[in-house]
């Protein structure tokens, strides 16, 4: 079949982009796959586009706009039309969603409408609420529109949830990352299990390194944003830092919170021991240098970094926060879950594994086994079965297509 993923900005760095690329890579082995990006802010995507996957950007913005020659003037020339498309987008995508993600430009929205009208795709998969809402409104009958939830229902504003409740039932199906979120969506939409499926993020098949668990390094990874609660992690790590000054906390990620976090590190006297590592293209390579992964989030929609750490044999210590960690981590098996938002307990748990190499090694071994649950091949098979069922139940029949992949 032909499958298209629609991403707000497939050129950036982020969990959604990375996981969609991974899934596209797996599906492209047996299907024709393309990624539609509402906007692009640069010429080349941050991550390498998987072999055989076609990239279709709809609107060049920012630095990319100058090179594409469609900045300003073109927007102005098409002023009336743009205003019309802007109104149309507003009628479908709530303001909170448009504010949260700036990719719903009139030009991008118009581009998506045109794309949907002309696409030969059997399945179009949306990857965030605004896109899913547009697909629910505009996907033609011949196309199976699937909505993906990459965070969780509870993270959306009441306005967005209201729009979801009203429009998502028109989608041909939906996937969420965790069982907890499936329950939340089932309560909101009254959807049945065939329509609504739990689909964890996959781990792509790579020649992965493996941690030797001998470096005094705790890793944390994720955008430097309030939801990750790095100040709480600093407080928890302080316990380790005091008792084992040779241990280091390496935080991987970028974002607006960097300046504030720098100050918080310095204010706590942790300058020598906490390093802001920035973004990396090789997160598993970096995680494999560590002996522990720490997760201090308020909410984790899934917890991709946990399974990435598992895949290189690194156990995780996490708040038992909604939603992902408790569905991924087997407490005392491949990591430790501590009471939600209990910073002291997080510090204690980190200290325990810092001081107990044998437990680290036992849990690291279990983590490798746990990671196999998320292997790309298995997840792709689950996607194929899900899409085939949804196509069959909706009376659609995929047309023969070329295979994208090598």
């Amino acid at each position: 079949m032909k499958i298209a993923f629609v991403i707000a900005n497939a050129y950036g760095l982020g969990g959604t982009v990375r996981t969609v690329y991974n899934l596209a890579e797996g599906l492209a082995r047996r299907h024709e796959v393309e990624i539609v990006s509402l906007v692009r802010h640069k010429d080349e995507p941050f991550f390498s586009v998987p072999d055989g996957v076609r990239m279709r950007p709809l609107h060049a913005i920012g630095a990319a706009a100058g090179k594409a020659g469609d900045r300003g003037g073109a927007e102005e020339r098409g002023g009336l039309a743009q205003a019309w498309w802007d109104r149309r987008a507003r009628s479908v995508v709530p303001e909170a969603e448009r504010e949260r993600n700036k990719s719903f430009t009139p030009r991008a929205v118009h581009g998506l409408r045109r794309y949907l009208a002309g696409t030969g795709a059997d399945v179009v998969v949306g990857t965030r609420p605004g896109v899913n809402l547009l697909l629910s409104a505009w996907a033609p009958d011949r196309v199976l529109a699937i909505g993906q939830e990459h965070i969780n229902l509870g993270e959306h504003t009441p306005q967005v949830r209201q729009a979801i409740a009203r429009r998502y039932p028109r989608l041909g199906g939906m996937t969420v990352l965790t069982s907890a979120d499936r329950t939340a969506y089932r309560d909101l939409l009254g959807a049945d299990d065939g329509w609504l499926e739990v689909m964890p993020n996959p781990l792509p098949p790579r020649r992965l390194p493996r941690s030797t668990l001998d470096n005094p390094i705790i890793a944390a990874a994720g955008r430097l944003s309030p939801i990750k609660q790095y100040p709480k992690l600093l407080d928890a790590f302080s316990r380790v830092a005091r008792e084992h000054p040779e241990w280091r906390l390496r935080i991987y990620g970028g974002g607006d919170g960097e300046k504030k976090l720098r100050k918080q590190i310095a204010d706590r006297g942790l300058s020598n021991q906490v390093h802001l590592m920035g973004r990396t293209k090789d997160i598993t390579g970096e995680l494999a240098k560590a002996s522990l992964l720490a997760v201090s989030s308020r909410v984790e929609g899934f917890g991709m970094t946990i399974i990435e750490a598992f895949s290189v044999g690194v156990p995780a210590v996490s708040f038992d926060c909604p939603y992902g960690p408790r569905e991924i981590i087997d407490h005392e098996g491949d990591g430790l879950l501590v009471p939600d938002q209990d910073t002291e307990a997080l510090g204690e748990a980190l200290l325990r594994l810092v001081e107990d190499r044998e437990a680290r090694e036992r849990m690291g071994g279990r983590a490798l086994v746990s990671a196999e649950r998320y292997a790309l091949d298995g997840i792709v098979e689950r996607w194929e079965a899900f899409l085939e069922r949804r196509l069959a139940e909706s009376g659609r029949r995929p047309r023969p297509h070329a295979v994208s992949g090598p």
Partner: protein
Amino acid sequence: MDVQADLTRIDAADVLELRVGDAGGGALALRRHGQSDGGLLPVERVVRAGGSLKAPLEGLPLDDGEWDVLWVDGDGRAVPVDTTDTGVHLSDRAAYLRRPRRRELRAVRDAEGRLLLRATTVEPYAEVDWVEPPSPGGDTVAVRGVLAYTPDPEREGAPTLVARQRGLDGVVEAPADLDGRAFSCAVPLEPAALLFRPERPHNEWDLWLRLPGGAELRLAAHADDIADKKRKIVFPPTVLTGGGAPVRVRPYFTAKNELSLLAVADGGTK
């Protein structure tokens, strides 16, 4: 056959240890990275012990840069050695720094899982372990570390911390301590305020340790795997008013991972 290591480390004597299980018959060789059919540099005197190979690399003519590690089988076929080990073993570095050397070797795993050696020409320097910003009301930055790649220092005499104003002629000296190969010093910040040149937005002071024999070692942090510490490690600033207008001074690692002080007018950009 493919050779896959699950442990790759280089000890202080530049012996590469590869835990490969049963690698079968063959020999180790090196080849300049990126030269698919260049000449092979055989590694002689490799010792097999249990599932490990120990390959002495000291004395091999390795130019700076990356070298592929290859396994040459009985038929003369050379295949890359793969590894799952990142090659980063921080606990090994302390012993590595203790030996005098002009070439540093590191084992590196590339993104495809191949084992590379990275050779770098090095100078003796003073490895910084810990930087302690001033306590409230204080005006010195305490620095601790170890001598790296130098012979053991002379026992007579005391070392000196030397701070030089970059691009200008300001020089400040302060006493330092040496205990074996471990050094400590207190870098005075007041001169950075007194000699502050407001026409230069950034006044940098580079830090050196002068050993009793007169050799000067740059203060730096090269031992771990973090290539660019400039934005990754941040120390808090201290505001000094001794020279008139308030000046904000903080230690920082340069783009080359060397330790310096940065003085800016308080209210400036950094």
